[in-house]
Every structure is written in structure tokens, then in C-alpha cells.
């Protein structure tokens, strides 16, 4: 039995929004793989919950009329891994969330929950940041859109106001087309582990495959929240595909991150990982795009 003060069960998104307005202190329960565990641990014991798990209208992945890829927030990690549209347009997102927990956790954990928890180690966060994801956030007053870049305030604190629920994660067509990506999660174990550090890179090369047209790179656990490394990106854009490019991406990444020491790893080790994962993920992304370093 969970120590829950009250559990609300809306039948529709509208009911859920009304409950969010009436009970601003209640937490939104999606798959529960973080919240239910924190109730067991005592951290959230005695909380009020609004369970949106049964709201199937918040599940699914599709392509919108304007070509953008829309991921509904209750899609489980397994849904994301298996979905043909993800495999076709954004395989790196499936590769990233396939490294979360084990099969049971991937069946219950949701991509919306992953980003709304606002932790820096969220395995989907880096890739969604690196693809300039746009969030759709609904309230009774209507729906607002917000770049995911502006969503995280501080650890565990995101831009969800009283009365609001995340209803969509959108990847614009210009963001995923002709784009090749690679994600690396560094952890002590290959399953059931939290990232010590993670890096998600995507590149678009010029038509002759000689230069970088656009490179985007994001990190998890390299700062209090998931971050993009814009200095690394500036260093890379327009650059020839050579060793100097890889070094400049790594140098730029080091300038942008601010990791800390935790029981998982020291700051120094994390800085080493930032440099090394940036190099490796950049090289693999370029190779996937058909480019050749020093080619």
C-alpha cells in the first residue's frame, strides 16, 4: 500500500486540467516509475496525486501536417523504441531511451514523465534538447508552446505552472531531416543504472559532405540541468571534417559545462567524459551522415 493522501482519477484531459487548477499541490502521476518509488522512500509520502495514466489520448506518435514529429507525453519508452516513425526520422531517441532501466521500467516509464521530472540525468532530455524540441503545454485557458530549451529552471523544477499539463513534444521537420545523430550514455552498468554522464550529438553535412552545415550537442549530468553546448556548436558549424573539428567540439563542450562531484563520479572524471564523449559522439554522427574525417 502506498502512502498517498488522495488520488484523483480524471477521465479526460479537460478533467485533469480542472483538477490541476483546483489542487495545485497535487503531483501529476504518469507511469509512476519515479513518483511511486519516492513515495516508498518516504520523500513524497503523504502526497496528493492526479493519475493521468489512463488518458490514452495522451499516448501515441505521429507526423503532423507541417511535417513535424509529434510525441504524446504518455508514450512509454518501449513505445518510443519500437515506433516506426522514430526509427525512420529520429532513431537516436529510441537508442537513448532503450538504455533506461530494464524492460519492465521501459514499459511503464513515459517520455513526458522523464522530462517533467526535470532531472539532469534524464536519458531522453539531451537528445530532445539537441533536436530543439517544442513542448505543448495545456491549461483550461488554452495551449501554449514553449521551446524545451527554456523548460528546466533548476534540478527538479520545470516551467509547468499550476493548472498545466504537458500534452505534446514536437520535433520540427527542419530539425530532424537530413540529420544524423549519436547518443552515448556512460554508466557503471549497462542496465538499471543512472548516467554518470551522457552526450547526444546530431549533424547535418553540406551536400558535398565536406563540411558541417549544422551540429548540435547536448549533455546530461554535465550541469544541474540538461544543457546544450553552444560554444561547441559555434566552433563546429561550417568547419571542414577533420581532426581540428573534433578537437574544437570537445574544447567548446568543456567551456560550456559545469559538472559537479557526486557519489557517482568526481567533477574531474565528468570533465574527462565530456571531452571524450563529445569526440566519440561527433565522430560517429559524422560517419552516420556519410562523412569522412580527413576525407
Amino acid at each position: 500500500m502506498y502512502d498517498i493522501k488522495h488520488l484523483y482519477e480524471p477521465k479526460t484531459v479537460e478533467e485533469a486540467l480542472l483538477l490541476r487548477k483546483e489542487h495545485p499541490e497535487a503531483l501529476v502521476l504518469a507511469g509512476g516509475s519515479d513518483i511511486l518509488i519516492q513515495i516508498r522512500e518516504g520523500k513524497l509520502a503523504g502526497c496528493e496525486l492526479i493519475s493521468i495514466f489512463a488518458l490514452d489520448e495522451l499516448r501515441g506518435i505521429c507526423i503532423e501536417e507541417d511535417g513535424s514529429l509529434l510525441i504524446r507525453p504518455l508514450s512509454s519508452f518501449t513505445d518510443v523504441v519500437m515506433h516506426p516513425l522514430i526509427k525512420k526520422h529520429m532513431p537516436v531517441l529510441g537508442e537513448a531511451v532503450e538504455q533506461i532501466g530494464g524492460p519492465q521500467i521501459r514499459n511503464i516509464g513515459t517520455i513526458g514523465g522523464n522530462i517533467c521530472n526535470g532531472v539532469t540525468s534524464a536519458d531522453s532530455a539531451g537528445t530532445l534538447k539537441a533536436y530543439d524540441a517544442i513542448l505543448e503545454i495545456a491549461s483550461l485557458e488554452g495551449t501554449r508552446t514553449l521551446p524545451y530549451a527554456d523548460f528546466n529552471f533548476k534540478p527538479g523544477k520545470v516551467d509547468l505552472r499550476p493548472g498545466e499539463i504537458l500534452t505534446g513534444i514536437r520535433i520540427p521537420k527542419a530539425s530532424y531531416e537530413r540529420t544524423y545523430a549519436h547518443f552515448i550514455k556512460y554508466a557503471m552498468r549497462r542496465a538499471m543504472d543512472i548516467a554518470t554522464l551522457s552526450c547526444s550529438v546530431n549533424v547535418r553535412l553540406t551536400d558535398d559532405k565536406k563540411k558541417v552545415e549544422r551540429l548540435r550537442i547536448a549533455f546530461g549530468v554535465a550541469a544541474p540541468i540538461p544543457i546544450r553546448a553552444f560554444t561547441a556548436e559555434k566552433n563546429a558549424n561550417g568547419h571542414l571534417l577533420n581532426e581540428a573539428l573534433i578537437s574544437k567540439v570537445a574544447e567548446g563542450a568543456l567551456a560550456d559545462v559545469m559538472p559537479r562531484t557526486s557519489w557517482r563520479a568526481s567533477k574531474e572524471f565528468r570533465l574527462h567524459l565530456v571531452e571524450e564523449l563529445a569526440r566519440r559522439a561527433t565522430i560517429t554522427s559524422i560517419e552516420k551522415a556519410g562523412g569522412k574525417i580527413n576525407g
Partner: protein
Amino acid sequence: MARKTVTCTINGAEREYSVDVRSSLSDMLRGQGGLDSIKHGCDVGECGACTVLIDGQPFNSCIYLAIWAEGKTILTLEGLSDKKGAISDIQQAFIDEGAVQCGFCTPGFIMASVPIIMSEEPASRDEIRKQVAGNLCRCTGYDKIINAIEKTQHKRLEEKKTK
């Protein structure tokens, strides 16, 4: 605290339980349903000892609210036996391969392996390891468990071929 009636199919039979809305699915299945194969191991989704199949996919029943089971089809280890109570091929393989020592993790491992042995596609040992990565065993060292799953998978695929 509020109670709610949950209607679902458990091991092929429709069941109805009145549950406290704060119950986990493991509380309902083991406590009210008497399905003792479900173990309360860690109770936080780490060990997999409470694994059941919901609509064919493995879930940790300890971090799944009982009320979410409404309308779902649930399979537990008890549902693998035939009508006379004889154990299934995967259970026999766990015995034959020495994949059971203390036995606490065994029901969870077997349920996590059901999607593998039901699949038409053969899984490599690495893929099997990935599919049971959410289950912990402190006795066997895992190799014998992988052997049992691999053996059952091969046997089933062979049987399909000859049919």
C-alpha cells in the same frame, strides 16, 4: 480511503476485486488474489521479482497501481501451468538447467522470459540478457538462467518448424 472495483482478466479468468486505491497491483494479486508467485522483493522496481505480463508485456507489479489494471489482461506464473496443474516447458527448463537455487527471483525471471520464448524471432544470448536485465538473481550468476531461456526458445522454434 476510497475503494474502487477493478475488473480484469487474470490467468484467463475474469476477476473482480474491491481495492483500496492506494494498492499496488502486487498487493492486489498476491494479497487478495492469493497468487504467491508474485514476490515483494525490493518494492521499488529494481529487482523484477514481482514481474507479471500485462497485455503481453512485462511490468513490475510493485510499481503499478492496482486501479490501472482495469480492463487489462494479466498473466502470472500460475497461469503458465496447464489445466491439470502440470508445469510449462520454461519452468521445467529452469529445473533441468539448475537455474533455480533459492527460487525467490525465479517467477519474475520466468515471466520476463515469456515474451522471448513466445517470439517467432530467435534471440541471441545478448538479447536474452537485455530482456532479463530488469531482474536480479543473487544465487545463480545468471548463466544457467540464460541457458534455460535459450534452450526453451530453441525447442519451441524447432517444434514450430516441424509442424
